[in-house]
């Protein structure tokens, strides 16, 4: 056990250095997923049948294929064949972001559909185009309602980000594995890795709670 602590303390800075890599991947994927998710949700709710179908296929594709398969497909398959040179780090953000956009689009779509029909009618009645009504009336409300869903999405992406070690991204798990294989202290090293993820989950969840409280519309009890 003492050996475990010595190994941990010697390698702690290296493993903790993976936190910034992990968080960059997670935040990058969340932001990409949110931007695409908003567009997809609006397209799915307000688009014509062809648009709705297309979004449906997109969501089906990215929700249906395992993350690792998509990572390999993009990195070794598509990008290699097209001779596009992107780092595993960037590819991971993109793939996680695309998957997240599929999930986030459904969170936001649910929020949009839960708004009373009268909101859009009222916006139209003062002469707003549908595009403006969506930007200024529908989305500000739908996005507030989506925050609890994002909290969930954050914890999922955080854990999924560990899979990117398979492409060689030097995030928390990859670094832990280096150390564990060098020192044979698998038990303590992976306990440490688990604790770091737990801590990040806790902090992230708290931050989302604060955000939720901050943007809450006064008078609304939720």
């Amino acid at each position, binding site marked *: 056990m003492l050996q475990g602590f010595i190994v941990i303390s010697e390698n702690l800075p290296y493993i903790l250095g993976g936190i910034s890599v992990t968080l960059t991947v997670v935040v990058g994927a969340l932001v990409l997923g949110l931007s695409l998710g908003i567009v997809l949700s609006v397209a799915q709710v307000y688009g014509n049948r062809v648009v709705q179908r297309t979004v449906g296929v997109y969501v089906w594709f990215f929700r249906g294929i395992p993350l690792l398969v998509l990572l390999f497909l993009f990195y070794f398959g598509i990008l290699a064949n097209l001779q596009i040179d992107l780092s595993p780090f960037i590819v991971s953000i993109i793939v996680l972001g695309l998957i997240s956009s599929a999930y986030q689009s459904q969170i936001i779509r649910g929020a949009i559909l839960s708004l009373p029909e*009268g909101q859009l009618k*009222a916006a139209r*009645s003062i*002469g707003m185009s549908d595009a403006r009504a969506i930007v200024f009336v529908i989305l500000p409300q739908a996005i507030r309602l989506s925050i609890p869903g994002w909290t969930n999405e954050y914890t999922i992406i955080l854990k999924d980000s560990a899979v990117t070690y398979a492409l060689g991204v030097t995030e928390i798990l990859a670094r832990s594995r280096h150390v564990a294989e060098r020192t044979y202290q698998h038990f303590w090293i992976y306990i440490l890795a688990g604790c770091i993820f737990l801590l990040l989950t806790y902090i992230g969840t708290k931050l989302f709670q604060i955000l939720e409280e901050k943007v809450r519309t*006064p008078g609304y009890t939720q």
Partner: protein
Amino acid sequence: MTDQTPVLRIQNIEKSYGDNKVLKGVSLELNRGGIKVIIGPSGGGKSTLLHCINFLVGLDEGRIYLNGKEIVHTRKRELTAYRQKVGMIFQDFNLFDHLNALHNVLIGPVRVKKIPKSEATERAVAELERVGLRDHMTKYPAELSGGQKQRVSIARALAMDPEVMLLDEPTSALDPELIGEVHEVIRDLALGGMTMLLVTHEVGFASSLADEIFFMEDGKIVEQGPPQKILFNAECDRTREFCSKIGRLHNNSS
């Protein structure tokens, strides 16, 4: 354009939901400064008619003219310009829930009319003052009473400088105590010369304001005329029966 041109003319509006024909060819005209009231039983198509006039519900047939010019609602720009001229008040207010009273009124002038924010704010404050809510500007819809919400929604419509106001049962979702404050605001509008088309069950209020009352049932305007005639001396049996019923209700409750 002469003064004789009706501000709003609707011609032969028809609307069906599936097999259910809710509007069976409704026509009416509103002259500048005129106040027309539509009464009639629930399900008679009154509310659908108002929504159709604002193209919030698509119509199957019919034409709508503003100041003599037919509105082609498939031209987006023409439609939004028309809606700016035709204010709409909803039964359940439909305030923007994420915005406070001031921003509910402000959003139209700023985002639709592109008026600079400072100028628009001045105007919005004035409109809120007009409906007696200057002290409640920073409150959100969830913090306002029903009567206050409806007054904010009237201010929101007024801030767009409408030429006509369509009011769809503006007080029917309110506690009896709160009806008076909204009626007062509508009465002020009438005195200010606003052209209005009002759907209501408040016959006392209607008769004191309207220059003409329409009795509407089963998707048609059954009878129309000055308030005294429609309410107390209608020609059509059905109109008489309806008016005597709601008249009794009105007398008993007042």
